[in-house]
């Protein structure tokens, strides 16, 4: 059967899908604007809003002292004031809020607000933070095995460093929120958020009201990618403060440049490593330190660092391994969740190690990778104690190695490189093994509310949010399959905190896993009621007691007794209509928590993940050695999504994830000036992949016949894991650069491998050759 399209596909192409900025609001609507710090670190001497207040059309100007509740919006640790009061710690930190009749008025007022600062020393990059040891929290470690003996037994030892850059989410829809005050203390919040429950909590806290006064609704987001997991809370809190102060609807839609300047990005990392290995390239010991630039506040940095540490092994068994994680505070906007959540950085470090070893031993990196994959029966326990079950790495490597014609192409590339001075080609194969679950174990829970109406139509509410990933489509498919009725009879509603409370963020790739199970749980309960009623109804019609609830099935919209499907059957809508008349409850809540997971965070040991998602990619590039220009010639991907619920959506996730990763690995470059001003604050100078940056040959397939026993309908999470497939491209570029020195040296290539980074790397190889 052809996979159903995204449930909003038609309204999307018609331009009729409603995003926050498209919601019709009455003429009372005001525009909200954020006035933010223009210096990286300072004490605030004074704030003068007198002139601004006089501007005709300004309805409210709010400062920290005007916040009725708690002036905080940090999601985990309360170290982020909603509005700065006495000091500012980054450029982009909110200081004042303005509500005005329109944008122009708000801008005019903003220009008239005078803020006097006394500037303080600022830490504007990770190097400075490391040098000053400005740690955010005590360092963490995970260790298995004895490092000293591991290194002692190693024939070879190498050390090195990798730098990975920040990445801007660049969701097409910037952060947006609309707040409409209700009766009394009620606040209705329409937010482009991945985490409505947390948005609700933060809004309640800044307003000083209880959570039951706040309703947050999210119909859809125009992209999120982690950037609206906590950062959307900020915009919602600001909007709510203005709506509360004016008693009128207020909308804040961040201007693109403001969005890029204010909100956090993917954490830059500096990764230091020492690795011991045999002459065959077998890993024996690794000592890895992951240094993360957290920015000015905690946000989710500790969880991101943790996931980076949990992925520092990539897909390889290292008998003795120590991972140290350090998060540093800098005077830059607080970095935040972004697809992969530290995983890409952790894995990049290990893939760099493998490359370094391979080049040192003059082996094909593919061989070294394969040699070190986690084993099936042994060598299969990670550095944090979890056994890698249902390991698909070997199968996938074999399949992809053959289907991509890797060996032959590797030889052809070597020949090409010998014959070409100014163009070099490179190829790399890299694996993905990504742990699925929130590593903060209690977050692995979800709720749902399923309503069946008298006409047999079904409305599904669940805690997950739709950001384009097709969650609602998959959930509708799950509901239809579990209930046994057609997809047409199912509708998934906007996510709403008054329908399903206390939800977790739609994050960690777990949206379908968690919410799908919660929906199934609700449907299981409803089915029990319906089958019980149907048995009674069939018996009533036949005036007997032959039908038993356990023999009632629902399939293709028909309710029937499997022992007498001819006589004892009725369509779903009819049974539902009758059930209502017989006072059967047709609505229920569902709940799910992931079983059998848990680990000791302090020890860094246990089973943090429900399962692993696997992937494998081969990428080939052509590099103009003179300009650093890269052509993406060909990429083959084989990805593991278990039994796919929707192949079209899953392939879209894999392709989109890979290309987003490609951006992080190649063109998405973020620079600051010496005062901490973001230089790449618009798409003019911040370059995400365009349509001509995708591989010329781009073949994506899903691993077949690989059911996952640990998730809904034997599927697997997708979302984040494919992002890391792009490491194949980064390493293919490195392979091409290495060809400029006959593969004799390991090129010093950071992420992103921009044309600039490539040319500087080639230059460095030349000068040290």
């Amino acid at each position: 059967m052809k996979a159903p399209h995204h449930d909003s596909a038609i309204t999307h192409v018609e331009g009729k899908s409603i995003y926050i900025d498209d919601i019709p609001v009455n003429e009372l609507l005001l525009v909200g604007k954020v006035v933010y710090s223009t210096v990286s670190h300072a004490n605030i001497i004074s704030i003068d809003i007198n002139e601004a207040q006089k501007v005709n059309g300004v309805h409210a100007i709010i400062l920290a002292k005007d916040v009725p509740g708690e002036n905080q919006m940090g999601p985990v640790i309360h170290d982020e004031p909603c509005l700065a009061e006495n000091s500012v710690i980054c450029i982009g930190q909110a200081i004042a809020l303005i509500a005005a009749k329109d944008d122009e008025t708000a801008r005019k007022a903003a220009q008239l607000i005078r803020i006097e600062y006394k500037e303080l020393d600022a830490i504007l990059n990770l190097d400075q933070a490391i040098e000053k040891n400005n740690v955010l929290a005590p360092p963490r470690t995970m260790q298995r095995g004895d490092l000293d003996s591991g290194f002692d037994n190693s024939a070879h030892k190498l050390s090195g460093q990798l730098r990975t850059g920040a990445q801007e989410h660049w969701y097409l829809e910037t952060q947006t929120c609309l707040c409409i005050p209700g009766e009394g203390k009620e606040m209705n919040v329409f937010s482009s958020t991945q985490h409505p429950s947390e948005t609700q909590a933060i809004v309640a806290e800044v307003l000083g009201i209880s959570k039951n006064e706040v309703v947050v609704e999210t119909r859809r987001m125009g992209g999120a990618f982690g950037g609206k997991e906590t950062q959307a809370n900020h915009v919602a809190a600001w909007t709510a403060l203005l709506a509360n102060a004016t008693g009128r609807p207020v909308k804040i839609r961040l201007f693109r440049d403001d969005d890029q300047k204010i909100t956090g990005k993917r954490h830059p990392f500096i990764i230091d490593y020492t690795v011991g290995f045999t002459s065959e390239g077998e890993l024996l010991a690794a000592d890895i330190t992951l240094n993360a630039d957290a920015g000015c506040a905690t946000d989710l940095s500790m969880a991101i660092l943790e996931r980076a540490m949990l992925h520092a092994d990539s897909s390889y068994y290292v008998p003795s391994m120590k991972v140290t994680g350090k998060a540093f505070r800098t005077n830059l906007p607080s970095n935040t969740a972004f697809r992969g959540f530290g995983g890409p950085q952790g894995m990049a470090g290990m893939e760099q190690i493998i490359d370094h070893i391979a080049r040192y031993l003059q082996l094909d990196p593919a061989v070294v990778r394969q040699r070190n994959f986690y084993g099936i029966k042994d060598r299969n326990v990670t550095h944090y104690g979890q056994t890698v079950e249902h390991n698909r790495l070997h199968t996938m490597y074999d399949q992809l190695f053959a289907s991509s014609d890797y060996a032959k192409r590797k030889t052809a590339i070597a020949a090409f490189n010998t014959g070409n001075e100014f163009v070099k080609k490179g190829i790399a194969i890299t694996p993905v093994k990504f742990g699925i679950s929130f590593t903060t174990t209690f977050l692995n829970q979800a709720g749902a509310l399923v309503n069946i109406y008298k006409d047999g139509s079904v409305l599904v509410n669940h805690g997950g949010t739709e950001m384009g990933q097709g969650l609602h489509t998959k959930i509708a498919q799950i509901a239809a399959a579990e209930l046994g009725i057609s997809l047409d009879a199912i509708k998934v509603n906007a996510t709403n905190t008054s329908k399903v409370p206390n939800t977790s963020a739609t994050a960690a790739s777990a949206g379908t896993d968690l919410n799908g199970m919660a929906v199934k749980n609700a449907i299981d309960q409803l089915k029990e009621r319906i089958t019980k009623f149907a048995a009674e109804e069939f018996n009533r019609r036949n005036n007997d007691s032959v039908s038993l609830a356990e023999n009632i099935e629902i399939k293709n919209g028909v309710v029937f007794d499997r022992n007498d499907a001819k006589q004892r059957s009725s369509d779903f809508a009819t049974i539902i209509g009758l059930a209502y008349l017989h006072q059967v409850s047709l609505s229920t809540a569902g709940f799910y928590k992931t079983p059998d997971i848990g680990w000791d965070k302090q020890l860094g040991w246990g089973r943090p993940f429900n399962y692993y998602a696997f992937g494998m990619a081969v990428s080939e590039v052509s590099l103009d050695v003179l300009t650093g220009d890269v052509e993406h010639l060909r990429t083959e991907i084989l990805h593991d999504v278990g039994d796919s619920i929707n192949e079209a959506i899953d392939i879209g996730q894999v392709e989109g994830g890979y290309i987003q990763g490609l951006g992080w690995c190649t063109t998405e470059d973020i620079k600051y000036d010496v005062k901490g001003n973001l230089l790449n604050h618009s798409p003019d100078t911040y370059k995400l992949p365009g349509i001509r940056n995708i591989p010329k040959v781009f073949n994506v397939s899903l691993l077949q016949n690989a059911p996952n026993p640990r998730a809904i309908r034997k599927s697997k999470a997708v979302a984040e894991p494919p992002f890391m497939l792009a490491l194949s491209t980064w390493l293919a570029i490195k392979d091409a650069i290495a060809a400029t020195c006959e593969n004799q040296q390991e090129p010093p290539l950071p992420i992103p491998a921009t044309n600039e980074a490539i040319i500087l790397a080639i230059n460095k190889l030349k000068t040290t050759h």
Partner: protein
Amino acid sequence: MAEKIIRYIQQGKIKELDLEKEQLSPTTTVLNYLRSSPLHKGTKEGCAEGDCGACTVVLANRGDNGKLSYTAIDSCLVFLPMLHGKQLITVEDLTTSETSGAQLHPVQQSMVDCNGTQCGYCTPGFVMSLFALQKSENQPSQASIEDALTGNLCRCTGYRSILDAAKLACTPDHHPDQFELNESRTLSQLISLQNNASDLEINVDDQRYFRPVNLSEALSIKKKHPECIVFSGATDLALRVTKRHERLYDLLDIGGIDKLKTISKDNQLIRIGAGTSLEEIRNSVRKELPALCTMLDVFGSRQIRSLATLGGNIGSASPIGDTLPILFAYNASVELQSESETRIFPISEFITGYRQTAKRADELITAVIIPLPSKEDQVKAYKVSKRKDLDISTVSGGFRLRLENNVVSSITLAFGGMAAQTTCAKKAEEFLIGKIWNRENVMTAAAIINHFFSPLSDARSGAEFRRIVAGNLLIKFWNETASNA
């Protein structure tokens, strides 16, 4: 007598827009105007600078063949008066309502069928770019499809599905759509608008906006109001409104002057009217000026090129103006006109400094004159940018070489992005004159280039990269031109 009513066609009807009456600024963008109506929320703002294409709409006009020609543009960069005399088509206009329900346009249906949409925010823009493509080309090549979509960014899909949708949408076997069915009616509406078109002059508060249809009128306005900001496509100027939120007071829009949009050729030279769009140039002079077209192929996006003009690009005299180095290499001249005289400057003398030109306040740039290079001349253009498309150069080069018996008899090495204005690497040129065009001499010259410039470090790259790559571009030029490289 100039009039003040903007007339354009939307949804089959001629719309009349009186900005003075509505108290709307003449620099209101089409995007903001559309979105101010509850009926036109389909067009999205992604960046307000023409770098993402979420706001793409289509303008239809009468083409040279007498049929409708459809052009995708970024509505965030278009001022309302620029709609004058055209048909505006937005995403909402594509779907037709039938008795059987809403009927998607083939480009919309293809996007659905190929799963070309995820979060949906970029989708209306892609749909409109695809619509313009589908109306312009039957079974376009892969290259042409990609070219039509470089101005649209998608952060979700990875584009493959959108490329598939484009291929499916542009197959020739579709039933005629409503635009085809209504073509003759639309054409007669356009003709009536254009026949009656006269100069526009709009005054709202302290803002004044002129849109003359004749060059003589434009020159007269410029003489009377030398303070007027002159523009045609507004792809650069609009940023001052949309990004810097400036209020622009006196504006002279020369985009309505057909006379400035002509390209004429003879055996000696090509004369390109200053108001000719870069897309039009790209489609007209590839045979004669291939290196200029190489540059235009990666200039902005199709949306940008369809509005941006050569006059505008050189008039801004930007240090990184993408077309300038190659115009230096072609020895192009700039024609300036005022009411009293016509002056012609070699491009190198026209540009006098950082964003400075020799143009007087009463003058307009009217044409760029490019002498056809002789057969002995090799001319090439190079652009180094972080992303190939829709990115401004980090460094660009326009080179011209003449060899006699493999000895350099003349050479121009013009660079953009290396100094405050487009600059020739004089020392390297002098070094190479009279030298054999071989590796050794080129490597030496590349090192000279590397040391000749003191470029800036900025958002696009550091100075070191610029210096290395500038020298490397000469090596690349040699590699592509030397017989025995």
